[in-house]
């Protein structure tokens, strides 16, 4: 449960698109963004996908490339959704949706799943976020003043995975930047995010800046600066 599905309920969704108001910009679709994430996954990597947007990633892995999807409820080798009627209440992903297991996969208990995560055996954790700072701070578990905080495995994945990357829209629904100099939302972990994939840009986090490695069609330095509240460098 890296990022709660509940975050995407209509009354609190911050995941719609404000970037389209930026002149000639043609933002990537989140499906395209999923492709960007997928193409950066090393062969053989053990990958944990947060719920929500990151679940789009497996659909974009090149055919025949073996990657191990880890699910923190106790599975390695998570496969696609089963055909209708093939669902099993005991074979679900972190978002509680029905999945399958691939040949070579295995089950283990919850404690082992988190030992695996915290112990550095997950190569890449792909998560959503409310905010990511230019020093890699991650805020994706709670909003300020929340009555019912719910953390799930977000903090364990954030400190445990060898590489934490974030996949999200570039701004909130209201157009507020989510790439910030300093997070104002409660932290999940400090200094852990290495790369962000948004609908406007892909950026590495280095030396207190977002270093842009790719930008969506029509995105200029000026347009990106408008919707980013943190130092940016370009290295496209």
């Amino acid at each position, binding site marked *: *449960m890296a990022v*709660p*599905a*509940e975050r995407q*309920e209509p009354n609190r969704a911050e995941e719609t698109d404000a970037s389209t108001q930026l002149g000639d910009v043609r933002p990537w679709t989140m499906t395209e963004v999923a492709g960007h994430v997928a193409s950066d996954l090393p062969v053989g990597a053990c990958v944990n996908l947060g719920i929500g947007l990151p679940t789009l990633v497996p659909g974009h892995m090149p055919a025949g490339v073996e990657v191990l999807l880890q*699910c*923190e*409820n*106790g*599975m390695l080798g998570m496969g696609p959704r089963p055909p209708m009627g093939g669902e*099993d*209440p*005991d*074979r*679900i992903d972190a978002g*509680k949706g029905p999945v399958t*297991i691939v040949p070579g996969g295995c*089950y*283990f*208990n*919850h*404690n082992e799943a*988190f*030992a695996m*995560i*915290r112990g550095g055996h997950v190569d890449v954790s792909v998560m959503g976020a409310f905010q990511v700072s230019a020093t890699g701070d991650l805020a994706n578990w*709670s909003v300020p003043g929340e*009555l*019912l*905080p*719910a*953390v*799930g*495995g*977000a*903090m*364990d994945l954030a*400190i*445990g995975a060898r590489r934490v990357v974030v996949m999200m829209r570039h701004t909130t629904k209201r157009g507020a930047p989510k790439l910030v100099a300093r997070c104002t939302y*409660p*932290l*999940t*972990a*400090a200094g852990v995010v290495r790369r962000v994939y948004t609908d406007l840009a892909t950026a590495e986090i280095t030396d207190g800046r977002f270093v842009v490695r790719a930008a969506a069609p029509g995105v200029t330095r000026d347009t990106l600066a408008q919707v980013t509240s943190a130092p940016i460098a370009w290295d496209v």
Partner: protein
Amino acid sequence: MLPANGSSSHEASVTDTRPLARIDKEVATPAQAVAGIGPGATVLIGGFGDAGVPFHLLQALADLGVGDLTIVANNAGTGDDGVAALIRAGLVRRVICSYPRSRGSVWFERRHQEGSLELEVVPQGTLTERIRAAGAGIPAFFTPTAADTALGEGKERRVFGGRACVLEEALSGDVALIRARRADRWGNLTYHAVGRNYGPTMASAARLTVVEVSEPVVEIGDIDPEVVVTPGVYVDRVVFVGTEN
């Protein structure tokens, strides 16, 4: 886990009439399985979402009606069944869990808003590790999870290898209620897929471990000793409930 009485001397014990020479942990009904759980108990409850949730045992516990319970579980229940049945019935004083807010956690949210339910939110990996520590005789451990976050506030902080950590203490239960697939009469268990989740860990961390199983209980020797997941030594009672939930 027998009480280690053995208080009779070897001479006295010659005339000792042993109550049982055969270990058989099977009980007939979920009601018998939860019998004796008292008010104020801390109850560890297996399951993640609906996977591995011991619905029959939870219904029996709700029917038993003992209150003032502390519930330790991943979620706080959804709908009207499972953990939600206990909360709905007002039997729960405190919930220690990782993810209380799920779609459909109506009873939890209602009782929490009423102020009748305390909540302690624990990162998922720390929750399972605290339970594992209790079962493994480890009173406390340091973990990097939640250090320098709101959930690490008030905890002892120490840096190991340049990394901030917090001290977490073991979390044990009076009772563990879990669901497995197959059991033999000694309580050896196997599970089904991710229904395994908290089961093996919680089984080790409670004074009384109760298991509902989806297959009829088998004779000893019917489970390959190489594939037992939870050794029977952790299990006290087993009840066959079938696969329907």
